[in-house]
């Protein structure tokens, strides 16, 4: 490591408890705060899914204690159809925004992006701190709608118009509940925009000497590409939320059509456009799917390479694929609207790029698979979850081919087929990416190792459980089971109820497996084996500093980068790898950039 400490700027570490742990400017603390928020949100979201699944399996079952949470929504512990929709909305919102966006992007990205580029911190630490606390406030605003007398909004995480703008006439939670939802998401957008600002300028401006763009690890590339997507997507969702709030509180008519009669009541708005919301929402919503998954692609590649002990077939191709996914994600959003009454020619126009976007996704998978072929993969919890990610990504992706065809989508739209598709490709895959990242980076973040055996148990239970839950969803969808029904009273749905019961049992089992993870996390944090600086014999910058990293990441030194990020399978003084920051010259079978 190159010591320039004579010229290096020595920053003073914070001393007060508040500055160290609460309003910290340190990207590592902020990353951990994001992780904690995501973990809490995930547990709440999972509990909500349990409640929904129990209700779907056994419609009349009283869930003890539910009446305390909502006396109106669940009298005697049996939830009303409206309350089912409210819980479903909160499950989707919490999971998509506060788990899938927060954990892989904001949590890991905050902690590791500056270290991987060799920087001391993000360039705008105050914005970074604000980013977390605004997001945290957004979360509080969202969950506060649980205590409203009519509960949270029931409009689903997509909040379609005109239901989102007509006020309490639309049902319980559609008045103040929607306003709180929109406020929360608008705040969330601000938080993520501040985060993107820091991520982009960290990647472009704070790289150490020798760290060219092509020498960035794939995880850093993924966070960079994701922050570019977030910048474009969240800056469109925020104005859309503002317009809905105005429809509620100021009496404007952006989204409510004229002459809308609901429950024999004429809604006092005129001439708004319901499709407008869908356009604005999905312009954000589809890239959001990639905001959730692209960090996973980067993290999983990063972890697999360290465990395969050889680089991917092509680092460059993976980077280009992630970039292509990001660009194309803006051109495909209309495929969510095939049955919205949109012009059929538009459907065709959106169907084509949707099929095209499978090309970079497929190339990514092929690069993974052919790189794995013949490698002697080290099997540990992190690499298992990385493999699980690929499995889920493929399984969920394949059903995307079907949905991309407007003619097939007309039948499958709004059925459990779609629910199965996006849960596998975006939900479970991204969660597996988060788990892989946790098992891989926990030693660096906490200074202690996680229990590998418990990690493997966690993997197998989650892997089998997730397939047991989400594979049958596809069959339910093909059988015509419409999503968002709270009860299945139609004759043709009766034979499907045993499948729902099976799924419920699988969901309870898989959820319980996550408690193994939480136990492992907490136990290892305090009583785990102390971690060495580089437990996985990995090459990137985060492993060349102390565990856990000092306040300024590299202890007052400015490292210099001499190598590509993934120099494995070489002969060096330390083993079969050479660190990016090591000046040692090694023989490789390919040219370094």
């Amino acid at each position: 490591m190159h010591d320039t400490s004579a010229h290096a700027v020595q920053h003073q570490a914070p001393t007060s408890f508040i500055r160290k742990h609460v309003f910290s400017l340190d990207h590592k603390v902020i990353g951990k705060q994001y992780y904690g928020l995501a973990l809490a949100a995930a547990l709440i979201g999972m509990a909500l899914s349990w409640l929904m699944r129990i209700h779907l399996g056994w419609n009349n079952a009283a869930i003890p204690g539910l009446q305390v949470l909502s006396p109106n929504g669940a009298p005697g512990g049996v939830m009303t159809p409206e309350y089912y929709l409210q819980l479903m909305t909160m499950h989707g919102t919490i999971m998509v925004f506060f788990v899938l966006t927060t954990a892989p992007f904001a949590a890991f990205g905050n902690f590791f992006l500056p270290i991987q580029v060799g920087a001391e911190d993000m360039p705008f630490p105050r914005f970074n701190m604000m980013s977390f606390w605004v997001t945290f406030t957004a979360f509080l605003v969202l969950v506060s709608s649980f205590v409203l007398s009519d509960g949270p909004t029931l409009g689903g995480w997509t909040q379609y118009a005109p239901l989102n703008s007509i006020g309490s006439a639309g049902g319980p939670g559609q008045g103040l509940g929607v306003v709180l939802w929109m406020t929360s998401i608008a705040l969330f957008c601000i938080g993520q925009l501040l985060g993107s600002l820091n991520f982009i300028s960290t990647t472009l401006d704070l790289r150490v000497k020798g760290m060219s763009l092509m020498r960035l690890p794939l995880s850093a590339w993924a966070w960079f590409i994701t922050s570019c997507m977030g910048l474009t997507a969240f800056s469109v969702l925020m104005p859309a939320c503002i317009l809905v709030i105005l429809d509620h509180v100021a009496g404007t008519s952006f989204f409510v059509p004229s002459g809308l009669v609901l429950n024999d009541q004429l809604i006092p708005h005129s001439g708004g456009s319901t499709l407008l919301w869908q356009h604005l929402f999905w312009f954000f919503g589809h890239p959001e799917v990639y905001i959730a998954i692209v960090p996973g692609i980067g993290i999983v590649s990063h972890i697999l390479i360290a465990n395969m002990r050889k680089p991917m077939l092509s680092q460059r191709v993976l980077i280009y694929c992630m970039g292509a996914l990001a660009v194309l994600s803006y051109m495909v959003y209309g495929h969510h609207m095939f049955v919205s009454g949109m012009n059929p020619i538009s459907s065709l126009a959106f169907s084509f790029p949707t099929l095209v976007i499978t090309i970079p996704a497929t190339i990514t998978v092929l690069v993974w698979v052919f790189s794995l072929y013949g490698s002697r993969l080290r099997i540990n919890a992190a690499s298992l979850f990385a493999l699980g990610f690929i499995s889920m990504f493929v399984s969920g992706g394949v059903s995307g081919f079907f949905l991309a065809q407007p003619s097939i989508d007309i039948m499958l739209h709004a059925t459990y087929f779609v629910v199965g598709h996006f849960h596998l490709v975006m939900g479970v895959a991204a969660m597996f990416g988060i788990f892989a990242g946790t098992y891989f980076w926990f030693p660096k973040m906490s200074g202690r190792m996680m229990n590998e055996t418990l990690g493997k148990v966690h993997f197998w239970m989650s892997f089998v459980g997730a397939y047991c839950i989400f594979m049958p969803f596809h069959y339910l969808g093909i059988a015509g089971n419409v999503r968002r029904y709270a009860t299945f009273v139609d004759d043709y749905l009766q034979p499907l109820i045993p499948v729902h019961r099976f799924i419920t049992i699988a969901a309870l089992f898989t959820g319980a497996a996550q408690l193994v993870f939480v136990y492992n996390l907490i136990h290892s944090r305090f009583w785990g084996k102390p971690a060495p600086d580089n437990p996985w014999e990995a090459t990137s910058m985060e492993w060349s500093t102390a565990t856990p990293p000092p306040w300024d990441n590299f202890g007052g030194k400015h490292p210099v980068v001499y190598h590509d990020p993934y120099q494995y399978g070489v002969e060096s003084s330390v083993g079969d790898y050479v660190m990016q920051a090591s000046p040692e010259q090694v023989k490789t079978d390919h040219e370094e950039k």
Partner: protein
Amino acid sequence: MATTVHEPLPVDPRRVPDDGQTGNNGGRNLVPAGGDPRLALDYAPPPSATAIWVVLFAISMMFAAFTSALVVRKGSALDWRSFKMPSILFFNTLVLFASSVTLEVSRRRIAAFMGNMRSQVESPARWLYVTLFLGLLFVGGQYIAWSELRAQGLYLATNPSSSFFYVLTATHALHVLGGLAGLGYVMRKLDNGSLRRSTLDATARYWHFMDLLWVYLLLLLWVKL
């Protein structure tokens, strides 16, 4: 008011990226806890130069979303009523343009001040004050425009056309207020001698962008209202 600006120290060669591809050596461009602040200030490229483009891009996307909403909403129903825009808006436009000119003047003066021509420049902050005043005048002028509309009975919820007028102009005015806060920050930094050129440049870019954005909004409203 004592105003001092330090000229930059010669850049330590080890801080300069060697190939033009790398960033600014991992430093975070913060004033260190102890020692001479100038050590941290003046090596390139400062992240704020990148960051300001990121900010401007996000703002552009936001107004693009509002614009598409306006176009779709206007086409979706027959309830769109046109109205005459308050004439004070054209005066406000001139005020905003003038503020950009004064900001450029002050930027040159501060550059001269930093460039060791201190004797020729007395108070570089003066033109910043003028800019600040013109910015406030613009926001005040916008308020008068809204009052005129209210006097005509055109409120936020009266018609989609008035809704969009208020939403667009108010969002722009909020961003102008953000720019004024940025100018205040620049003045404070200038005052205590720790102003970075990059901060000033970023603020100026933001401010000029507010002009551009305003011209765009004015044209949009003129065509669509």
